């Protein structure tokens, strides 16, 4: 057995970097700050790659034996009760090792990229401190061996996301976006917390290994239905999924994600594409046996439908957005919907194809989506605008960006041999076995994805040449290198036999492509791409004509299905104007009134008796003496 104790250093290195940068508080030179951040991540990445190599390599490959779940470190952190102590520990299993690689790699790329992107920004060291804090939190979340630790780091991730979205704190929109993201996810986390409490109270443990064990306290019992025909455990799982949906921007808790694009673009690449937003998927995958078996997978059905609806709505909204980052944000939401969908449909077969497919997609998506975001960052860096209408024919100016962006677009659209094709195809295969309508939605969304991604691509890199205030140019090597590296991964990641490593039961599986299905999904992707090419590769009036002819339907989508407006209505009209106004009236008239009355009475009383305070010591002495004598007389003659 290899010694995996060094796994502790993977989260600790970014944390150290955070401490150094945070305590030095912008006193440190920008160059040194960037170097500290990058260096800590280089070490952490090297360690996690080494760990993955030795973990998966320990098997030698080939034999049909489950990967062991190891806990190299574990200690009791808080002992509130003897039976239910809070532990801190490190859990290594295929899922967490895979996530470790994803998080450290993407984070490293973002750290390097930011050297160029954030150059000369005020608060450069602060930026790197927050980035390191986020990486630490995410790694802690991934490595958690119990659900309480997950929650702990979950919130830390939320805080650092808040800090990074609101990095430009002098911009009101960024501050509003940070608050929105924090409040929405916090609201969702309330459900998560209650879910944890219910689950752990009845299971008597926080530990993932025990929760997931077939003969453990959860799965060995038959839970009687308590409410709505479902057992308590089902509702606990649903509440936990609420937290997951909040973090992963699933419908209807997705409203914070597009606004979160106010943060610096590399932050979006790291947090809102590759790591934090997939935490929800990770969480469901982590508790997958519980989700699968409690109430015969009823909770998984919910997960599947929420995923499918989110994927569809987000894809539709992505088609009309005019802000490059918002398109990518909706695309992220749609792809995460895909992953949820895949998790949700994998209750059937013993090999649980959807589980593997979902995590495979998580893996590939992390790379090509951060590639897309970093490419978008390059464009924004060159043009200083997010607006698609001010872009066009950039392929000559930004060749690196053009090629890497194209690779990523092909990958997300599902064109072989790029990585997205393989993972998406597995998802569709899994969905087809399970549920026709979910499969149909998935299939349709695949076409939409290809369409909106290539709408983006053609609008930016082809189309009409615009008047640019200065000639657009690409960033330095520190921005090109991450693009090239991520593009490389996107090219080859699809050929990783993912099922060999990560699966629901820990056993290696071989998955073969179903070429009939693959062919049809390539077909719909190509239709989407060709439609986008026809509409956007040259400047035409046609797209706006279509938009106009659709009229109210287009407006509905453009206004994001009015979901934000509904929330605003509920929050403002009902909570603030109705309930709040009543409470405010009560506060102003009853509470304040009482206080004012007390104050005024005291004032009047004191002005009435202030003459007693003559300032003459002798008067005081007289009164004092009289009082003392009266007391003496009282005590003498009392009995």
């Amino acid at each position, binding site marked *: 057995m290899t010694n995996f104790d060094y796994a502790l250093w993977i989260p600790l290195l970014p944390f150290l970097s955070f401490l150094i940068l945070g305590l030095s508080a912008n006193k440190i030179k920008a160059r040194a700050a960037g170097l500290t951040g990058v260096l800590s991540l280089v070490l952490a990445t090297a360690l996690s790659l080494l760990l993955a190599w030795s973990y998966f390599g320990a098997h030698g490959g080939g034999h049909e034996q489950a990967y062991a779940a190891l806990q190299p470190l574990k200690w009791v952190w808080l002992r509130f009760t003897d039976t239910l102590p809070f532990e801190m520990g490190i859990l290594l299993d295929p899922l967490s090792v895979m996530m470790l690689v994803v998080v450290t790699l993407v984070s490293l790329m973002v750290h390097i990229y930011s050297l160029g992107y954030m150059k000369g920004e005020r608060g450069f060291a602060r930026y790197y401190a927050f980035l390191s804090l986020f990486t630490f939190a995410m790694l802690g979340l991934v490595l958690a061996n119990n659900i309480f630790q997950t929650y702990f780091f979950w919130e830390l991730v939320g805080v650092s996301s808040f800090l990074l979205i609101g990095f430009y704190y002098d911009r009101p929109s960024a501050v509003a976006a940070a608050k929105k993201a924090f409040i929405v996810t916090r609201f969702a986390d309330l459900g998560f917390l209650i879910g944890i409490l219910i689950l752990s109270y009845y299971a008597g443990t926080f530990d993932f290994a025990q929760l997931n064990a077939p003969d453990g306290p959860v799965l060995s019992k038959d839970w009687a239905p308590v409410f709505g025909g479902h057992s308590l455990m089902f509702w606990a799982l649903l509440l936990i999924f609420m937290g997951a949906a909040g973090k992963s921007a699933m419908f209807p808790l997705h409203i914070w994600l597009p606004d979160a694009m106010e943060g610096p673009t590399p932050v979006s690449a790291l947090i809102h594409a590759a790591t934090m937003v997939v935490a929800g998927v990770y969480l469901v995958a982590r508790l997958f046996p519980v989700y699968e078996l409690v109430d015969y997978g009823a909770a998984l059905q919910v997960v599947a439908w929420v995923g499918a609806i989110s994927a569809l709505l987000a894809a539709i909204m992505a088609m009309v957005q005019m802000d490059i980052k918002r398109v990518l944000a909706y695309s992220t939401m749609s792809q995460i919907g895909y992953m949820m969908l895949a998790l949700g449909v994998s209750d059937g077969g013993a090999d649980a194809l959807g589980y593997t497919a979902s995590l495979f997609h998580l893996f590939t998506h992390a790379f090509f989506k951060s590639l897309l975001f970093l490419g978008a960052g390059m464009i924004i860096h060159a043009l200083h605008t997010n607006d698609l209408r001010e872009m066009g024919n950039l392929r000559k100016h930004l060749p690196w960006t053009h090629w890497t962006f194209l690779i990523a677009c092909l990958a997300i659209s599902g064109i072989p041999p790029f990585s997205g094709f393989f993972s998406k195809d597995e998802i569709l295969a899994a969905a087809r076995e399970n549920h026709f309508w979910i499969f149909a939605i998935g299939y349709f969304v695949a076409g939409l994805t290809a369409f909106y991604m290539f709408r983006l691509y053609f609008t930016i890199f082809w189309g009409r040449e615009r008047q640019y205030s200065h000639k657009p140019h690409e960033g330095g090597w520190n921005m090109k290198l991450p693009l090239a590296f991520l593009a490389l991964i996107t090219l080859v990641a699809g050929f990783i036999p993912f099922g060999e490593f990560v699966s629901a039961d820990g056993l290696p599986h071989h998955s073969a492509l179903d070429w009939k299905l693959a062919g049809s999904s390539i077909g719909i992707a190509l239709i989407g791409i060709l439609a986008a090419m026809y509409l956007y590769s040259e400047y035409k009036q046609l797209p706006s004509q279509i938009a106009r002819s659709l009229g109210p339907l287009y407006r509905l989508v453009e206004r994001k299905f009015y979901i934000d407006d509904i929330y605003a209505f509920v929050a403002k009209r009902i909570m603030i104007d109705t309930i709040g106004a009543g409470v405010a009236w009560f506060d102003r008239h009853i509470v304040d009134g009482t206080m004012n009355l007390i104050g005024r009475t005291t004032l009047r009383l004191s002005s009435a008796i202030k003459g007693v305070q003559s300032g003459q010591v*002798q008067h005081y002495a*007289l009164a004092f003496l009289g009082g003392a004598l009266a007391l*003496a007389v009282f005590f*003498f003659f009392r009995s």
Partner: protein
Amino acid sequence: MERLLFYLIAASLIGFGLLTVTSRRILRAAVYLFFVLAGMAALYFLMGYNFLAAVQLVVYAGGVVVLIVFAILLTHGIDHRLRLAPAGQMLAALALSLAGIGVSLFAIFSYDFPKVLREPEVEMSAIGQQLLSTGKNGYLLPFEVISILLLAVMVGAIVIAKGRKMKNS
């Protein structure tokens, strides 16, 4: 004999005390105070507390009265006549004082004090040893505290009396 002496001293104490608080010439009041303090010292002598009597004479009669006289001469002329308080206040104070005397005397005379027959001689060395002992009934700590207090008072008095002249110079 001693009893007679005591009554004499007590009468003079009360008489001079009354004069102290009623005299309208402030310098005379100070002199009457001196007699009261001296009478007090005589009472201590009678009780056998020679040391206490000596302290009383040295500190009070020798120090405090002189200090007061200085203060009077610094602030008033010798002939200064004091104003009287309003009649109402005088009456109230008189009534209260008489009532206080009444209540206290009643309390004193209605209480049955225990009789202690043994009466050891007061030795100076015993006083000194107990005053400076750290053991049971030792008074070393208060003694030291008092000395620090006196030091602080000295500094404080100088600083206050020196006043605002610092700025002018």
